[in-house]
């Protein structure tokens, strides 16, 4: 092999590579400029859980423990209690409510079994996905973090309107 053939081969490779690169420049970009732009999440995305309330603002959860029983990673911890007050003043929809409802996101695998198990539609997956924290203890989220009335929704996502409304890796090239 001579030096000349080396140079020719290299030049061919560069031209081939650059032609692909340059050809992409005029095309539409599909890199999401996160966090400057919001990420598009699909409606069934499984993010941080939400505990729901009914139309009167009472927690739907009746602390039946079915989510905890269904959880394969044992990350849900509940303490149930009696709420003896009249119906309108109660915390929850029923006399029984969850005094403590913790999810340990250090263990949660976002499988969605808890949502499947819930007989009261009290727990669903929300869209908050930025769960990283500085200390491990902060991965334990309490009812104050999970209740739909209290959970702060991230500005960094938007929910897709349709199947075609996708970004990033799901996009047809």
């Amino acid at each position, binding site marked *: 092999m001579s030096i000349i053939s080396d140079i020719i081969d290299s030049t061919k490779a560069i031209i081939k590579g650059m032609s692909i690169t340059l050809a992409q420049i005029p095309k539409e970009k599909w890199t999401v400029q996160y966090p400057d732009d919001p990420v598009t999440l699909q409606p069934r995305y499984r993010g941080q859980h939400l505990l729901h309330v009914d139309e009167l603002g009472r927690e739907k959860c*009746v*602390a*039946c*423990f079915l989510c905890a029983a269904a959880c394969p990673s044992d990350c849900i911890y509940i303490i149930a*209690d*009696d709420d003896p007050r009249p119906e309108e003043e109660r915390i929850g929809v029923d006399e*029984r409510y969850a005094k403590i409802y913790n999810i340990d996101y250090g263990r949660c695998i976002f499988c969605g079994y808890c949502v499947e198990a819930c007989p009261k539609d009290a727990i669903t997956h929300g869209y908050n996905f930025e769960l990283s924290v500085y200390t491990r203890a902060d991965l334990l989220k309490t009812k104050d973090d999970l209740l739909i009335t209290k959970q702060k929704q991230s500005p960094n996502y938007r929910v897709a309107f349709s199947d075609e409304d996708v970004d990033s890796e799901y996009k047809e090239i």
Partner: protein
Amino acid sequence: MSSESIKVTINGSDYQVEKGARLIDVCRSNGHAVPSFCYYSDLALQASCRTCLVRIEKMPKLQTSCTITCTDGMIVTTESDEIEKARRGMVEFLLANHPLDCPVCDRGGECELQEMVFDWGGLEERFRERKNYAPEKYLSPVVANDPQRCILCKRCTRVCDEWMGEDAIEAGGRGVNTVIGTYGGWLNCSQCGNCIEVCPTGTLLDGTYRHQARPWELEQTITTCTFCSDGCQMSLGSRGGEVMRAVARDRYVNGINGEFLCIKGRFAHPFVNHEERLRTPMIRYRKGGKLIPATWDQALEFAANKLRETADAHGAEAIGVVGSPRITNEANYALLKFANEVVGTSNYTATDRFSLAPFFESLGAGLATHRDIRFAKTIVLVGGEPEELQPLTGKQIRQAVRNGGAKLIVINSRAIRLQQQAAQFIHIRPGAEDAAVLALADERFDELAAKKLGVDASELSTARGTVLDTEGNCIIMFGGELSPAAQSLLAQIPHAASTDKRRFLFHPLPLYNNSVGAHDIGLMGGAHTASSLLGAAGAEIRALYVAGSFLPDHLRGQEEALSKLDLLIVQELFETETTRYADVVLPAASFAETDGTFTNNDGLVQRVRASIPPAHQSKPDWMITAALAQTLGMDFNFQMSASTVFRELAERTTAYNGMRYPLLKDETKPVQAKHAIAPRRDLADEIEALRLSIESLDETAEKIMGTPPVGHELFKPGELTGKVPQFHLLAAGNPKPPDVLISPLYQITIDAGLRRTDEAVAVAGD
């Protein structure tokens, strides 16, 4: 009993069954599953749920197998399309008014209706009408009720009537409006909670465990109840180191009591996790000072040094060791070993109300099991009040009379509730039980006894006649009222009166869960009784090592004696009157945190199992004793294992020879201790002594009239039951709160004023 055998064909297979057998039992025992709700063996038949339908050839319609007695040549089909259709139809009917609020219902997960619907229910409910709605409410501080969940199997009403003889809960109304309830909407009964246990749905629920946990989360541990000498087997449900509930459901435990428990067994467990439990060892460095928390090492070192000092200064006999009829055999054995081998003192005892030693020394026949009581022919009850102090015995007596036709003779100074079932009730003067025993044993004393008892002499001869006419088992029960001589005399009756057709059995009624065990171990055989030990405190006794506490009635008027001691070491669960004078307090583990055995009044040695780890820094009693011995330089070689303690105990205790934990593991086959039967012996001395003491009895004493109220012993807030707020409500007369929809605990303030004060100090068996 007929043992004639007949042939029954079920689903094409032939079976030989005993004549008179019930079809549903035959089907089930031969592996042909037949579902049912209302059928409950040992209770009257109901046939209202109609899920046990089977096809019997030559009968026009499907039959309820729970009401059919097998006949020869019967051909039965339990599985066919027709039967399945009928069963599915019945389950659909049962669900027609059921709210299906399983997520909220405490029974969800262990509900018989839920299981039945999984097997036989439809996917969809076709009944779309409005359901009869009724809110959840409370029937008493410990019983919650949701009328809408009821399927009207009436197990609760039958249990209340047949087991408890109380009839407190009944079905009112008619048709679709039938509800389980009670007059006035408030339950005034002994609050045994058996209606909760047998309820196949979530209609009747535990008011203390309400909305606390779900059954599948609980770790179920089979153990023995710690409250009375009946030794009921129960299952403690614990979650995260906390005892949540006690049940006797047959899916968890099948002991001598079946599904029976009393209010104490079922509802008094919250003391285990009570916040007032002792957390650390404590030392009072100088008399009159405060108890100061210390480490185990410090406390044991302090106690050991003080014990050494006492022994050096006053000799080993100056040290007393006091066990308890409430702690395990292992713990009592460790204490006895401590007294004998470490200290070398003969001053040991257990704090029982009365000693069974004279009875066991003269024992003329074996001990009756509770099953023997259920099928006895004659039962003689001298003194005692089993329905309050030994509720399982009470229930067995009641069933023996009601369902077994047994003759019950009650000899008591009070018209206890059981006398309503009695064939003969001999209402005697208070304190004259000895005279009755003397008359039962020897007819020569009829006149004397009758005069002292305040009854007619013919009553005594009638009772004796009933006993001597018995064919089958005759069971003699006695309470703590008898003197030692009377106990011996009673225990020897079988030698004179047994025949081939008549077997005598004994059933003592001690007050504590391990009274019999404390006796068997030999702890009651020391030189002192608890009271005399207190009397000698400060004189020849300089130091006491107490496991548990002195009973309030031992201590009454003698509290000062404790302060005269140089050293008082106490192992306890809570701060009590005894720990107030203690120099060293060691936190002990409760029955729910220890492995061990209790011996009940049948002589059955039954396992106690640790359901949760010991609370705070507490340790099992035998471990504390062993650690103290270790500090004093003696290794008990218990290897930190209760089974090692028990093995040593069984080797050294004649009645327990050969027993090991693996032998005791099955609660369905309890093992009875082999109490030695004493030979016939001359009782002239005892009879003479009894005669003399009886002659000094007051002939003019007033009889106690009136029936003692339900729960006068059961509801007393004692050291343990007093930690449960519901007991204070019950002891205060169980007032109906303004709103039954809310737990009475939220509505009625419990303060010291509500506590029953009259006899509160003399709490028995709690």
